[in-house]
């Protein structure tokens, strides 16, 4: 494999597979080549390990004409990412030059305290992605003024298809404000789970919360 391939496969954890995962991958590779007559091609930097296995299984069931289109699309994606890297853009970072090359999907968040009528002070949130059987924390952040995330939480190649969780520390927020609530409070650490099928689209998670209720939805 080329240096680029080695680095790209490591980015998705493909250099650290268990024996069972390795066996599955070998079986999928053989089945795919048997069915379609060419090897499975995927822009691994765009996916988590779980995402790659899911795509592999799904695409195995496609007809070969569809798969030829998919493979060409993936090759073009790989080429774009390698080119932008050559020109000094990290494919995992955001950046104006990269934004011109790659689609500009992003994940943003807005938490609104409907008890006080405004979000006063920071709300702490942990961002995780489901990968390898668990939610793995990608980053933690405190909201900026008025409860919004300060810019994108994830964007560019760092924003992959998959299952995400935002763990919002509502209990800590009300404790910080000195709001009188029963102990333990009804709403405390709130997991907001959601899937991202197409990270090229904007995903805005709007979260309306109070001490006794909450709602979330895909906003814009």
């Amino acid at each position, binding site marked *: 494999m080329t240096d680029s391939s080695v680095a790209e496969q490591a980015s998705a954890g493909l250099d650290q597979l268990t024996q069972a995962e390795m066996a599955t991958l070998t079986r999928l590779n053989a089945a795919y080549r048997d069915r379609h007559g060419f090897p499975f091609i995927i822009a691994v930097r765009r996916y988590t390990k779980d995402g790659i296995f899911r795509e592999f299984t799904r695409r195995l069931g496609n007809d070969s004409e569809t798969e030829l289109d998919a493979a060409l699309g993936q090759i073009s994606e790989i080429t774009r990412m390698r080119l932008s890297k050559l020109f000094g853009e990290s494919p995992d970072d955001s950046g104006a030059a990269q934004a011109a090359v790659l689609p500009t999907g992003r994940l943003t968040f807005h938490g609104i305290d409907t008890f006080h009528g405004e979000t006063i002070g920071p709300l702490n949130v942990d961002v995780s992605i489901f990968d390898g059987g668990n939610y793995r924390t990608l980053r933690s952040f405190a909201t900026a003024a008025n409860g919004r995330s300060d810019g994108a939480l994830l964007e560019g190649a760092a924003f992959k298809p998959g299952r995400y969780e935002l763990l919002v520390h509502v209990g800590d927020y009300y404790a910080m404000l000195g709001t009188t609530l029963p102990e333990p409070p009804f709403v405390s650490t709130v997991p907001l789970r959601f899937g991202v099928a197409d990270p090229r689209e904007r995903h805005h998670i709007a979260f309306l919360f109070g001490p006794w209720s909450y*709602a979330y939805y895909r906003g814009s």
Partner: protein
Amino acid sequence: MAGITTHVLNTVTGKPGTGMRIDFSMLEGDTWRLVKSVHANADGRTDEMILAPEHTRVGQYELLFYVDEYFRAQGMALPDPPFLDQVPVRFSVSDPRRHYHVPMLVSAWSCATYRGS
């Protein structure tokens, strides 16, 4: 009345979330222990209370709603992975002498919960 109850409402159709699977767990130490798995009935409620008053203690509980499975069974086309799949609602009971009614109002792209009555 005391204890824990729930109610699933499909906000796309305005109808009860009949058939939706709900897993109920309680936090014991650091681990969530699955207590029961039930399905919403014709009225979107559960035939038995989620947790009877005599078993309800101060503590943390979770209702896990199988939203994706429900909407797919209704014939709705959804992306993979869907926006909402299994939606956990975690809440605490601070006074077991009181009733905790914890409904789930849900579409494929939004959900809401609250302490009702």
